[in-house]
């Protein structure tokens, strides 16, 4: 019985190793004290009782962090706004100094011999708070008399950003007779990887290395973050990250908790372990989305789009953290024209600080939101002006002969075939016969709707200049691959082994993948922006060539032929005249024998390769068909059809899995998930009891397929897949629900379309 993926055996037998599964000798345990207030002055912290408790080893507060000269949590890039203004930041201290700015912010940490003792003692830490008025929403934060979060950010506005040409857009709007505007909310979410955050840090004084066990998307980013906070050079960190229970953007960087465990482990000279509770993560881990887009569209007399503009407000939460600023600026604007030829584009975003948990990346990080914005706007315009949503899209698509296509705000889409993708999706979805199904549903008292979402997104993320990979052959013929990108469910071990196995003619089961091994000093990007397969995968493609080149002279020697007379295919080196051959696998084993290459310890085929590749533009058409029960407000996704252009596909199974997962995360946002704070900044959705995650049965029927237009921007011709599911599903589900509403005369509603909200909405329109 062969298993589907290399990683499966350990995961189905319970022998995987997630961070909390590590137990180091002599380890002690950390528990955090967190702010119960959304905004308060901290006037004093009394740790005496906690510190005096049995089994307590250490209590750290801001004073200790300052004494250790720790810096703030990374606050993201220095983004430029309107008129060259640089982003104004409220940076997050590792432990709150003088003031807390959101519920769940770490204030102190207690370390004890047992987790129970640390928990008990943490309840004895007395923090004196003087509550301050809080702003829990962007609207409140932008009021002229709003409480101010950070002295360096007047008006709570961190940045006002723009992209595109305002003048051209204004002109187009003034000349168009038909214009429409729609406000779309992409509500705040919690990404909730199923593995709660856990960290264990051990300091190896002998080697001078601090070993950090943590889930991560890439060890280099983690090391860089740890170093920037602690001032300890990157070389002195080692990251251990074996199995990672989902990431979705939340495992991208070093957090306050990481830094504190480093500090504690070095002070105590003992390993320190922390396993978060889900509740503390709901409050204290960063959130995603939190965007409001006001989109406007101008349409000329022959139904061509003349201009699109967006005014966005971006909720950053209480501090500028990690990618928060990047999402609301670059990631929203870069594909703001969607799949359409739009002569004039303009976006303005206001990045605002509020007394809520910081917001950063969650699957798609702005990409699903802008796809949602455009595609809702297209459908809204079609409904408003009685245009056929399919024909309206077709008429405005970037035509196939226009690639490479430069959008009005300067993004270059390298390739695509939007018409063909749309056609394939329409036929797969039985779009033509929908009205019959709608009529049949009506007979049953149900309201059906169908919706299209055509997304174009920019995949690619990460600041590393290139992706490097390396390999090690061993005597038994196994091949170990190394790279930086860390898996968290995507199947890296399987996909990379498949690429190398296909190229070298080696059984993929003989190939092992290791991410971020400490003894390999490789440069590369972590997992993010859907880039691992095509970035690191392309470097592996180059590694294949490098290995074959290196092996050739050895094959010539073994086969007693001239290198020029030898060809390589299907894993075999063959002499042209058919006089003999040897497989690369056999050759590599033979070369493991020391006498084959005297004087060198290293296997002669061990080598490295790299690639430099940036963005590409996956796109696709998703079509949802929904049915609403007006009696209960319950909406079912009756059918879901996706056709994605992901370029060349390496593993169709893995791709389908990625699309399913992304689609259901989108469906979660559409129907149930929402992080809600009350007006005072208290978190109302602090656990899975009140934050409704999608469950089995969210998708009743799903069909996913691909239509490949290979990109020339990387060696594999592949495009990113990880985020496409969210980018396709948010708009198509929403358009389907709005289509159902429109059929009974009801107008738009914002997400989440929970039964209660849908029911109320329908009642209003009866």
């Amino acid at each position, binding site marked *: 019985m062969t298993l*589907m993926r290399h990683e499966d055996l350990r995961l189905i037998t319970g022998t995987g190793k997630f961070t909390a599964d590590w137990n180091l000798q002599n380890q002690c345990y950390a528990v955090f004290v967190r702010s119960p207030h959304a905004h308060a002055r901290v006037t004093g912290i009394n740790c005496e009782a906690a510190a005096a408790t049995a089994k307590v080893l250490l209590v750290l507060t801001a004073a200790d962090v300052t004494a250790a000269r720790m810096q703030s949590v990374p606050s993201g890039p220095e983004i430029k706004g309107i008129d060259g203004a640089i982003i104004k930041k409220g940076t997050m201290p590792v432990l709150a100094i003088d003031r807390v700015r959101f519920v769940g912010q770490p204030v102190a940490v207690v370390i004890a011999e047992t987790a129970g003792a640390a928990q008990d003692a943490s309840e004895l830490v007395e923090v004196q708070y003087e509550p301050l008025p809080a702003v829990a929403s962007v609207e409140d934060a932008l009021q002229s008399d709003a409480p101010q979060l950070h002295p360096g950010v007047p008006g709570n506005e961190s940045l006002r950003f723009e992209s595109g040409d305002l003048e051209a857009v204004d002109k187009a709007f003034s000349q168009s007779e038909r214009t429409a505007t729609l406000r779309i909310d992409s509500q705040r979410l919690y990404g909730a990887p199923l593995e709660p955050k856990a960290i264990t840090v051990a300091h190896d004084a002998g080697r001078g290395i601090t070993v950090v066990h943590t889930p991560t998307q890439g060890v280099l980013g983690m090391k860089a973050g740890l170093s920037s906070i602690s001032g300890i050079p990157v070389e002195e960190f080692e990251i251990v990250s074996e199995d990672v229970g989902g990431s979705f953007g939340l495992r991208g960087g070093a957090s306050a908790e990481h830094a504190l465990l480093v500090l504690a482990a070095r002070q105590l000279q003992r390993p320190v372990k922390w396993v978060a509770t889900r*509740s503390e993560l709901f409050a204290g881990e960063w959130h995603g989305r939190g965007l409001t887009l006001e989109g406007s569209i101008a349409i000329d007399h022959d139904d061509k789009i003349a201009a699109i503009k967006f005014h966005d407000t971006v909720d950053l939460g209480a501090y500028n953290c990690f990618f928060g600023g990047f999402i609301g600026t670059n990631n929203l604007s870069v594909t703001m024209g969607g799949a359409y030829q739009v002569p004039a584009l303009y976006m303005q975003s206001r990045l605002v600080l509020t007394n809520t948990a910081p917001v950063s990346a969650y699957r798609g990080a702005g990409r699903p939101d802008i796809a949602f914005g455009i595609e809702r706007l297209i459908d809204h315009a079609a409904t408003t002006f009685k245009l056929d949503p399919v024909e309206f899209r077709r008429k405005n698509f970037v035509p196939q002969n226009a690639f490479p296509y430069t959008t009005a705000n300067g993004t270059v889409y390298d390739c695509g075939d939007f018409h063909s993708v749309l056609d394939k999706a329409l036929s797969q979805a039985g779009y033509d016969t929908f009205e019959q199904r709608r009529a049949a549903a009506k007979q049953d008292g149900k309201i059906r709707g169908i919706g299209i979402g055509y997304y174009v997104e920019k995949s690619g993320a990460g600041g590393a200049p290139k992706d490097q990979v390396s390999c090690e052959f061993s005597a038994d013929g196994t091949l170990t691959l190394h790279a930086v990108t860390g898996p968290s469910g995507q199947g890296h071990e399987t996909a990379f082994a498949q690429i190398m196995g296909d190229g070298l003619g080696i059984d993929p089961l003989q190939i092992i993948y290791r991410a971020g091994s400490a003894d390999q000093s490789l440069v590369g990007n972590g997992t993010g922006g859907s880039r691992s397969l095509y970035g690191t995968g392309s470097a592996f493609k180059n590694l294949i060539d490098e290995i074959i080149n290196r092996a050739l002279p050895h094959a010539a020697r073994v086969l007693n032929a001239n290198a020029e007379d030898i060809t390589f295919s299907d894993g075999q080196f063959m002499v042209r005249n058919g006089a003999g051959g040897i497989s690369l696998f056999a050759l590599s084993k033979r070369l493991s024998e020391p006498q084959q290459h005297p004087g060198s310890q290293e296997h002669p085929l061990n080598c490295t390769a790299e690639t430099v590749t940036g963005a590409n533009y996956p796109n696709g058409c998703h079509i949802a068909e929904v049915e609403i029960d007006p009696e209960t407000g319950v909406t079912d996704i009756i059918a879901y059809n996706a056709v994605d252009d992901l370029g060349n596909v390496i593993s169709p199974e893995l791709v389908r899995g990625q699309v399913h*997962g992304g689609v259901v*995360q989108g469906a979660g946002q559409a129907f149930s998930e929402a992080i809600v704070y009350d007006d005072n900044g208290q978190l109302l959705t602090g656990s899975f009891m009140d934050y409704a995650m*999608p469950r089995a049965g969210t998708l009743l029927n799903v069909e996913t397929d691909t239509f490949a237009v290979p990109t020339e921007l990387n060696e594999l011709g592949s495009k990113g897949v990880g985020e496409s599911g969210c980018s396709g599903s948010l708009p198509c589900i929403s358009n389907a629900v709005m289509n159902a509403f429109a059929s009974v005369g009801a107008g738009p509603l914002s997400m989440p379309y929970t039964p209660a909200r849908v029911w109320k909405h329908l009642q209003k329109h009866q």
Partner: protein
Amino acid sequence: MESVSFVVNGERVAVDVEPRSLLVDVLRDQLGLTGTHVGCDTSQCGCCTVQINGSAAKSCTMLAVQASGAVIKTIEGLAENETLHPVQEAFSQCHGLQCGFCTPGMIMATVELLEHSPIPTVEEIRQGLAGNLCRCTGYVNIEKAVQSAASNLRTMRDRDAAEASK
């Protein structure tokens, strides 16, 4: 400290536990059975599902002392020697797992589900897994895995019955 003993994966074990210790923590931290996971603190996620006296239970909802005398099976005890349980196989073959964090709980819940509903309807599958969250797969392939395991289990049972009647 209280001392409790139970049978875990066929072996009798005795451990000293704090009265407040949850069963899941004892399994993981004291017995080293880290295949059972903890994904929440409100009994919602199902990552901690094990079998207690033959039926599936969330081991985070139970104190270790309450399990005294019980027969417990965890994910580590599901395969017989080297032979995977059909549910384990089906999860892999149908690509019903990505990160694998929910998987042990999903598998244990599925084993129970198929005991009650050997020919499960889609509705029964969804109900049977209602207490288990997965953030990665979108559940589509998990549902397929349950169907496929069900049919494999039936085939095995039929084969065993045929053998027995020979």
